[in-house]
């Protein structure tokens, strides 16, 4: 399934030579549907994770502001937001590392602050910082955390995660000598040691190369077939590819929640267009279509021998057709054309940039 549903004729090569929208491939429908069959929203059973009205302030800054959401059994929920939106703070409160100023977190129905150790016993957490003890070998590190988690049969648990995450080659290596990709896998192995029913991953693919990102996303999808997963990310293709449902955070608040397809369709009239013209576009045309010179100075930026303009607003069907006509008539390069139905990115930007 492709994200942007644009007129085929209007799709052009992006500036980097890739077809616009190619990066927004999502989980194949058949696999998603099969997966959704095991996502349950049973109201009688407690949710694996339930956050109610969380508030966290740092001095005058309200980092998390009245955030509520729940992770359903067997689903992969993405906490999506730009950097500084409050994702990591929210996750830290969910796993019990940080107290909220107000609000409540329940893991499998248990209060994470009052029944801390018990509530966290079925939780696996991989923080963004990926802390490892540099002097310990991978086996010793996993053994240490297996004992802290109270895993029965730690040797078998270690063998299982080592096999699942293909860590055989590095098992005797000191953690300090591992590449970023292996560090990420060791961090995930630690989270999986107790075979948790809930997995919380903070920016799990941050710092990985494209191949590693692909592998890691496949891994998360596989893990999500057996357990509930909450992951935070600011990468839209990741959210689309991996998550069953998204919660979008901006400036500490939940600004949208729903399935990726629903969210992408929420701004049906919205257009997200970028084009390149050889010479400045007439002001009356700019005003009619909301064409804005790209760049903070208000001057159209010169790129690739032309001036780049963009449109970020609702356009009627007639205006959209007229704009496409102008593009063809004047020989402008169409760099990007997304409509609301396809543009999760556009929706994301609209929600997180304060109405831009």
């Amino acid at each position, binding site marked *: 399934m492709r994200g942007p549903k644009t007129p085929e004729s209007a799709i052009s090569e992006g500036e980097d030579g890739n077809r616009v929208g190619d990066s927004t491939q999502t989980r194949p429908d058949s696999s998603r549907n099969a997966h959704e069959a095991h996502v349950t929203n049973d109201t009688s059973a407690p949710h694996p994770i339930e956050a109610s009205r969380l508030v*966290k302030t740092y001095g005058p800054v309200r980092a998390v502001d009245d955030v509520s959401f729940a992770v359903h059994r067997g689903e992969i929920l993405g906490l999506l937001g730009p950097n500084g939106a409050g994702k990591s*703070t929210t996750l*830290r409160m969910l*796993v*019990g*590392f*940080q*107290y909220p100023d107000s609000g409540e977190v329940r893991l499998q129905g248990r209060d994470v602050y009052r029944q*801390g*150790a*018990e509530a*966290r*016993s079925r*939780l696996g*957490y991989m*923080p963004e*910082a*990926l*802390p490892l*003890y540099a*002097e*310990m070998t991978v086996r010793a590190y996993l053994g*240490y*955390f297996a*004992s*802290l*988690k*109270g895993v029965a049969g730690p040797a078998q648990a270690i063998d299982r995660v080592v096999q699942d995450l293909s860590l055989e080659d590095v098992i005797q290596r000191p953690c300090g000598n591992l590449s970023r990709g292996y560090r990420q896998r060791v961090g995930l192995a*630690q989270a999986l040691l107790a075979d948790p029913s809930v997995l919380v991953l903070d920016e799990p693919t941050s710092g990985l190369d494209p191949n590693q990102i692909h592998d890691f996303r496949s891994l998360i999808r596989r893990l999500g077939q057996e357990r509930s997963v909450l992951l935070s990310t600011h990468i839209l293709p990741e959210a689309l590819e991996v998550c069953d449902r998204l919660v979008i955070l901006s400036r500490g608040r939940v600004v949208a929640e729903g399935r990726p397809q629903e969210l992408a369709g929420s701004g049906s009239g919205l257009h997200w267009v970028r084009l390149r013209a050889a010479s400045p576009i007439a002001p009356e045309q700019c005003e009619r279509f909301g064409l804005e010179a790209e760049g903070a100075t208000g001057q159209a930026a010169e790129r690739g021998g032309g001036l780049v303009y963009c449109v970020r607003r609702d356009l009627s069907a007639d205006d959209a057709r007229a704009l496409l006509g102008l593009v063809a008539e004047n020989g402008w390069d169409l760099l990007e054309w997304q409509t609301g139905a396809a543009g999760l990115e556009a929706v994301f930007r609209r929600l997180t940039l304060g109405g831009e």
Partner: protein
Amino acid sequence: MNLGRSYKIAVREARGLLWSTGGGLIVGTFWAATGLIFTLNLFQFERGIRLAAQQASKLQSGPAGVHINDWVVSQTFDLTGGVLFIFFIPLLTMRAFAEERRTGNLELLMSQPLAGSELLIGKLAGSVLALVSCLSIFLVYGVVLGIVSTPDWTATLVGALGLVLLGILFTSIGTLLSVLTRSPIEAAVLTLGILLLIVTGPAMMSNGPEWVRGMAEFLSVEGRFRDFSHGVFDLSHVAFFLGSSLLLWAASLRGLDIVRWQG
């Protein structure tokens, strides 16, 4: 409370402290310093015996009392506890929480199914274990003492107990400050300052009014430790050291709560 988890944390903590390059350097320096103090005291003792023998032959009387416990054991304990510990223990405790917080490991540890008390006991026990391992060099000094003279073993053991109790108290102070700070260096400097104040403070208050002197005497860690190092076993001193340490542990536990508030 699951002390098995605390034990695992303690062992990792002690290993991390002792079997790292930095840790090895610190332990090596500590051993070298105590070795130097012990050897110099032995020379002093030997010189004292010679002088006493010369004096006795001049006066044609029996030799004056020169005992190895006064000349070597007490001196070595006093200098180790009253001087070396002030510089050594901040280096031992600075990493306990501040380093874990800096690297992000504390976030991971505190999201495990661990009670705060289990984590704290593990960390404290790890630092004390490392300290006791460092003090194991004193066994070698004990053997040397046994070869060169006949020490009062009971007084020597009381002195060693005092050293361990003082170490536990100082380690508890360092751990509390490590909980409350984000940088190991900051934790070490603060601990050093406070230990200096604790050791020298009562002496500075000795010229004050009666009630101040009374308070200084009660709070004098060094005075109580000196009793131990001179072979005097006083249960109230044991209670003082352990009671103060317990208070500091409780404060550290509250400090972990502060960490959870601050994030």
